[in-house]
């Protein structure tokens, strides 16, 4: 934990952390969209349809 250690402003590091933040948001939204699009199809594929259930 960082405690009260006061960081000095460093644009390069801010960009680095900003990139990770942006990636996290993009992945959350992107995977969410993919889940909605392909989730039902994937479930059908994994669990099987009516025939395999019988």
């Amino acid at each position, binding site marked *: 934990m960082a405690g*009260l250690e006061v960081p000095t402003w460093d*644009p390069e*590091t801010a*960009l*680095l952390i900003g990139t990770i933040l942006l990636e996290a948001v993009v992945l959350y939204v992107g995977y969410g969209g993919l889940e909605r699009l392909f989730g039902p199809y994937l479930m059908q594929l994994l669990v099987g349809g009516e025939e395999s259930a019988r």
Partner: protein
Amino acid sequence: MLDSLLDGLGSLGTSPEMLALFVGFGLVVGVLFGFFGMGGSFLVTPALLMLEYPAPVAVGSGMAFVFGTAVIATLKHHDLGQVDYKLGAIMITGTTIGIEAGRASVYYLESLGLAGGVISVAYVVLLGGVGAMVTRDALKSDGGGGIDHEAADKDLDEYEIPDIAKTIQRTVRIPPMVTLRGDVRVSVWVITAVAFATGLLSGFLGVGGGFIRMPAMIYAIGVPVPVAVGTDLFEIVFSGGLGSYLYGQGGGVDLGIVVPLLFGSALGARIGSAATAVVDADGIKIYFGGMLLIGAVAVGVGEIGSYVGSSALELLGLVLVIGAAVVVALAILYTTVSSLRVTRREQTSVAD
């Protein structure tokens, strides 16, 4: 500025094998994190150390990975209405001051030559106390322990407030009072005291403090479990972000590690979290405990390997760490698909 960032990203393309390894490892860690709600990210730093990354890079990149994971998890809990920002803001302030006080106490005890002994005793008392409290509560309520997978289906005001929290809420009514999610009304001073105390322990023991903060929010403040989880993740976004920034300044954050790890773990966390709706976690908890033990042994084996200069032992350590995580993740996936198929068959036979 942009050049150095692109240099960092450039390392993504240098070794496709490592990229694939990190995405795959991220996927496994994500499944574990999504399913158990914890216990994935702690595998990252030891694995990076065993891959012979320098310690600041292993710790800094591990922390940046935790930061990214916390952002994603907080967004999810935000969508479910399980993050109390008011509580989070008060907690962050109190915790930060507490951490600094904790660190100061360590340096003071160090000057007296007592730091090592006192910290070890504090660890044993704290872990034993929290473990006993949570287990007792879990046994009393449903015969199980750990994460309540039905929690997501309950309304926040349906949660029973622990007796200790009720007593604190009744007796300490020093203004200003705040109303938190789940209709919990509590004095700001109680939150500040809890945040300071957990921050103090966190700074004193040199740990992130989630395992202290979450039970403290549940038992001392009385917030519902999902809100404690969501708000704790919100706090980790700040502490992890600040920690990553500090490590990043020293060149300790490698995007070539963090980007592929996050790419895999964000997908894995979705799978793991979806699996919680299907699988009874109790059966898999034993694997989880086993994985933690194997992880500990593996780190020890790897350390001995690097101490005696045996690359075979170091490799064995790495294989054990990754292997244990992969086995548990596969067990979760297999059980999930099997459970889904059984449910499907039952539904079909009922319909027939």
